[in-house]
């Protein structure tokens, strides 16, 4: 969807201080550029760690971005529930939507990505065009301004 240079450019505009991630095969290609450009990459072993870690960074004054695949989003559901609905901390996640652009592949991870977002009742956008990097920035900014969590499903 985006090159490493493109994502780094928009994350700089978003003033992201930390990327917390469990990479997938698409976002993983960005690692060299992210490593070189950002204040800190925080690598977690399991997606359930990512959301409370983002809370800690956020309440301590940083601007983290969580990156993971839809499969990780499914896995980390309880952590996300707690952050969004109990703590009410405005975390933001860029979620790689596995096989979204490959309808010929039967993949329940693709089929349930958008329904899950709707079921959670969270504010999200779908990025399915390579020219939508600024849409990510705009959505992140609007969620921050509103003080609510936000998510971008990035079609893969």
């Amino acid at each position, binding site marked *: 969807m985006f090159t490493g240079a493109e994502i780094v450019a928009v994350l700089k505009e978003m003033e992201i201080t*930390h990327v917390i991630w469990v990479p997938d095969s698409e976002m993983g290609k960005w690692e060299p550029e992210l490593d070189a450009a950002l204040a800190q990459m925080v690598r977690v072993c*399991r997606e*359930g760690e990512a959301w409370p*870690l983002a809370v800690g*960074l956020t*309440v301590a004054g940083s601007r*983290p971005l969580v990156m993971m695949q839809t499969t990780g989003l499914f896995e980390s559901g309880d952590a996300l529930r*707690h952050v969004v609905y*109990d703590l009410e901390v405005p975390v933001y996640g860029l979620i790689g939507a596995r096989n979204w652009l490959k309808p010929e592949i039967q993949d329940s991870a693709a089929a349930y990505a958008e329904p899950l977002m709707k079921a959670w009742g969270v504010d999200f956008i779908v990025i399915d065009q390579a020219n939508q990097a600024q849409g990510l920035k705009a959505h992140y900014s609007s969620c921050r301004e509103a003080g609510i969590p936000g998510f971008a499903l990035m079609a893969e």
Partner: protein
Amino acid sequence: MMNVRESLEVLSRVRGSDDVVVTNQGSARIWPLVSQHPNDFQYNPSTMGGAIPLALGVAIAQPNREVVVVSGDGALLMSLGSLVSVIGSGCQNLTIIVLENGIYEVTGGQRTPASGTALDFSTIASGVGFTNAHTFDDLAAWSRHAELMFETQGPRFVNLKVGPADRQDLQTPAEVAAEQIHRFQTALANH
């Protein structure tokens, strides 16, 4: 085996005035009985296994402040990988204190999968890369260690072998989570 409340009283005596203390599960119910500090965050209700990552986030964002997280052994077992994440982050200002009692205390005392096994949390921590990992089952020894703990290089790992908590101590009501995190955020901003 130590009394859990007494073991936490040791921590309350040695923590610095600027230090953050994040407690979780059973310890979140007992900690308010031994400490009332703006930099305390009783992570309750919570997601089991989430306390160490949350504390790690604070520690990364504010590297000049000591951050202590108290986790039960059941919660740590749900997120053993978080020890790796701590070491991988390179943070040096985080102290993990595990209260090991072999049971899921807040659900009534059921045994964890590690109960009765030879699992040694300090050995695991050392294997992950904590060069400062210790186990105590004696209050005097823990007290002596705690007095000098923050003068040593972090990240630190301390495993405290404790008995079941007094049931009365586990009755402390939880604050509304969103209100508590807002208060915590305000305290962290005054750094």
